[in-house]
Structures are given as structure tokens and as C-alpha cells.
């Protein structure tokens, strides 16, 4: 057997317990794991079913933009330039973008390293792994491309904003309509926008990378604003995640005729 390491190393105080914490430290990792699993299960199902994703004028964010010939009529704002070779549902093509943002997001990294990888499960609770190389090796070294996922996601947010604007058209194609679905799509675009803007890489690019703030007053001010949002990054990560699933669910229900969309005007 290899020599004991960590809290069992020979020079350290000999204490058998893996942790002496008496509070419910397992609550955060357990809850996080459950919510993330529920989201992944829901999103996978919805991404692969390939139906009930468009209810004029609402297009669910999971299928926006819809770019294969398989897309239902009216749902392809950007055309169907991908054509018909793509074998899976059109959602799978596009979900790669938000997925890569969230997978490499500094906040979600904390969340899943703790709750799935248990590295560590909670502070001052010994992790079960013998070896640990952090983010220095493949594949985790790829977390360093997070800023590129952000650039893509920012472009994707433009499309979601476009979808939210289009939701002000009535099903007959006339401007000046608003239904509950419009409101839901607007909130969705705002939350996803705030989530991406509050990103740590965004904060760095906007001004954090500067050595001197005083030489760049405009970027300093922008950095200050992003920093305020950044302080709420974890909350925005959760809120936008839950809301995007809810948005999809709402449009699914409308598209399948389970309920109809209340119209404000």
C-alpha cells in the first residue's frame, strides 16, 4: 500500500475522522447534484424529442436558432442552412454553446467538483481521491478556454434577445402583441444576458486584466459595473438555469395544446 497522504500523513496530528464537522455539510453538494441532474435529464429529453418547441410566435430557447430542414414551419429565423444531413434533433446542434459555457463556468466548476467529483465534497472534509492534479492536465486543462465559450454565448444571447423581441408579434405576424409567453421569453433573455455579463472571464476582459485602472477610466467604470454583477454570479447561474428550463416547459405546454397562452394585449 502506498504511504498515507493528506490528513493521514505521518507528520500530521493523528485524528481518525475524515472530518470533525458537526453541521450538515453534505446539504450543499447533495442539493446541487440533484438540481443539476434534474436539469440534465429534462434538457436531454427535450433536446432529443424534436417536437412541441414552437408555438407561434414563441420559440423555445432550446431550439433557437433552428437551422436544419427538420425544423417546423416558421421556427427558423436564421434559415435552414444546415440542411438535412444532421441526423439528430436541431436542438443538439445549438445546445453545445450554452453547455460549453456552463461546463467551463467558474461557478459551475465549483458546484460539480464538489457535488459530483467530491474534490472536496465540502470544506475541511477529506476527499476520497488518492491523487489530485487539479486543472493541470487534459481534459480539465481545457477549462482555460472558458472565454471562448463566453464569446459564443454572447452571440447566442443576441439571438435569444431577438426571439424575445419577436414574441411581441402576434401569431398572425402583427406587432403589438404580448402574452405571458412574451414576458417569460423577455425574462429569459435578461437572465441569460446578466449571467453571461457577470462571468469572471468577462470581468477580466472588460478591465480586470489591466495593471493600471487610472490610465483606463472607461474600462475601469465598466469593470466596476461587471464586478457588481459578478458578485451575484452564482445566483444568476441558478436563476438563469431554472428559468430557461421553465421557459422551455411553458412553450412545450402551449405548443402541445395542454394550455393556452394568456394574452395581455
Amino acid at each position: 500500500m502506498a504511504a498515507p497522504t493528506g490528513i493521514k500523513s505521518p507528520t500530521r496530528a493523528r485524528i481518525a475522522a475524515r472530518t470533525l464537522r458537526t453541521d450538515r455539510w453534505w446539504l450543499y453538494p447533495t442539493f446541487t447534484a440533484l438540481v443539476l441532474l434534474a436539469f440534465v435529464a429534462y434538457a436531454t429529453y427535450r433536446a432529443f424529442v424534436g417536437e412541441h418547441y414552437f408555438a407561434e410566435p414563441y420559440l423555445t430557447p432550446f431550439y433557437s436558432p433552428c437551422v436544419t430542414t427538420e425544423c417546423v414551419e416558421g421556427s427558423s429565423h436564421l434559415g435552414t442552412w444546415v440542411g438535412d444531413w444532421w441526423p439528430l434533433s436541431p436542438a443538439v446542434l445549438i445546445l453545445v454553446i450554452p453547455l460549453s459555457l456552463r461546463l467551463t463556468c467558474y461557478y459551475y466548476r465549483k458546484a460539480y467538483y464538489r457535488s459530483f467529483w467530491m474534490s472536496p465534497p465540502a470544506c475541511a472534509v477529506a476527499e476520497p481521491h488518492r491523487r489530485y492534479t487539479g486543472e493541470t492536465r487534459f481534459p480539465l486543462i481545457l477549462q482555460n478556454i472558458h472565454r471562448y465559450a463566453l464569446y459564443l454565448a454572447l452571440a447566442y444571447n443576441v439571438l435569444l434577445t431577438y426571439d424575445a423581441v419577436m414574441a411581441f408579434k402576434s401569431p398572425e405576424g402583427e406587432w403589438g402583441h404580448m402574452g405571458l409567453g412574451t414576458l417569460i421569453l423577455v425574462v429569459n433573455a435578461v437572465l441569460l444576458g446578466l449571467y453571461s455579463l457577470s462571468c469572471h472571464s468577462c470581468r477580466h476582459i472588460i478591465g480586470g486584466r489591466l495593471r493600471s485602472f487610472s490610465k483606463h477610466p472607461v474600462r475601469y467604470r465598466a469593470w466596476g459595473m461587471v464586478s457588481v454583477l459578478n458578485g451575484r454570479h452564482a445566483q444568476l447561474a441558478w436563476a438563469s438555469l431554472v428559468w430557461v428550463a421553465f421557459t422551455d416547459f411553458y412553450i412545450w405546454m402551449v405548443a402541445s395544446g395542454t394550455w393556452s397562452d394568456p394574452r395581455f394585449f
Partner: protein
Amino acid sequence: MGYDLQMKVWRGDATGGELVDYTVPVEEGEVVLDALHRIQATQSGDLAVRWNCKAGKCGSCSTEINGKPRLACMTRLSTFEDGETVTVTPLRAFPVIRDLVTDVSYNYKVAETIPAFAPEPRPADGAYRMQQVDVERGQEFRKCIECFLCQTVCHVIRDHEENKPQFSGPRFFLRYAELEMHPLDTNDRRQLAREQAGIGLCNITKCCTEVCPEGIHITDNAIIPMKERVVDRSFDPVTWLGRKIFRRDQLEEAQVPQSRAE
């Protein structure tokens, strides 16, 4: 109003030890360090505990209280439930010397390896000038009291002794960040942050921030910004190209002042 506090205190040294039960009369408003001092004064005169200021400013009294790294002088007894047993152990990431005292010299060795502040030459009138916004930026990092609670909680070394030679730990990522964000400093420590300080080993699980008694946002304001700087330096193809084109890679990179090998 006084009452009896049930305590378990780790007693021993590198050859072994155990949690010893104590019943300690305490007063309302007292802190864990008071209870430890009472044990010393009335029950076990040889209990080893390090302390100095009793005001949360010297960083000497770091221990683990009910499993959480904390300052004994800043942990009020009123934070525990009625009848709750308070367990105190030495820091579990460092070699134990005796009872609650550990050998934290690992941290001093790391400190020596960070290239010092290297200001640009003085301007003609001999006076360095810094704007208030630039001064304020590093202020948070200078609040550090070197209690090393963030170091002891960091699983990179707490759970993996073998990582110590390659890893500086959160307290020193603060130092790297502070210097890298200093407008007068001329060193580039980004390569070192990756290769010597092992910032890639940190998986930003934020325990350092959770335990810092000074409330420093270690992860958000120092580690992640340093990780992003390392990306600029080593992983981002666009900034890499920019460096080549504008010949910024000709600039000096800081050298290690002293090797970590003993």
C-alpha cells in the same frame, strides 16, 4: 452568567495523540481561546496553544473548531448550541508540534519564492505617484493577517501532502495578484504563477474564501483573476498572437529568487 462547557481538545505530538475531554467553567461573552486558557490555568498547565493578540489581528490562534478552520480568539462560545461539545484540534494540513501548535513553516518557504515588488525607475522628480483607484485595488489583499486558515483548508495540500512542493496556496495567490495588479511593478509573474505556484491545481472550490477571517474574496478577486492572466499568457491563441506581433514577449519575465528545494 457562567456555565460548564464540554470540550474535546486534541493533545499529543507527531508520535500520536487523542481528543481529551474537559469540562470548563466559562462566562457568557467568552471565546474559545478563553476556554483554552482556562484549561491551561486550572487543569492542564502544559496545554500548548499559540496566541498573541486576542483580537483577530495576529493570526496566531488558528485551530480547527468543530472541524472548521477558525481563529480561536474570534469564535464566540455563544455561536454553539446549548450543551454542544466544542472540539478543538490543531490545523490538519501542517505537521503537528504539540497539542494545538503546528509547524507552519511551509508557508514561509513559499513566501520566499515569490519575486519581490520590482518598481519601475523613479521619475525625474524622484516621487512615485499612484492614483487612488490603483491604491484601493490591492487594499483588500493587504488585509491578510497570515493566519493560514485558507492554506489549511485547501484540499490541494490538506488532502495531498505530495502537492506541497508544487503549490503555493491561496494566501500566496493573493500575493501574486497584488503584485500583478500593481501599476508600478515591472515583473511578469504569470508564467511563475502557473509553473511554480501551481495555480492550475486550484479547482476554485472556494473553501479558502469560506474560512478567511478577514473576509477577503480570495477566489473571486485574486485566484480567478490570476487564472485569467495565466490564460492570457499561456492558453489564449489571440493574446499569444498579440504578444508576438507587438513583441511584448521580449519583456522580462520574473525569475525565481530562490529555489524551493531545501
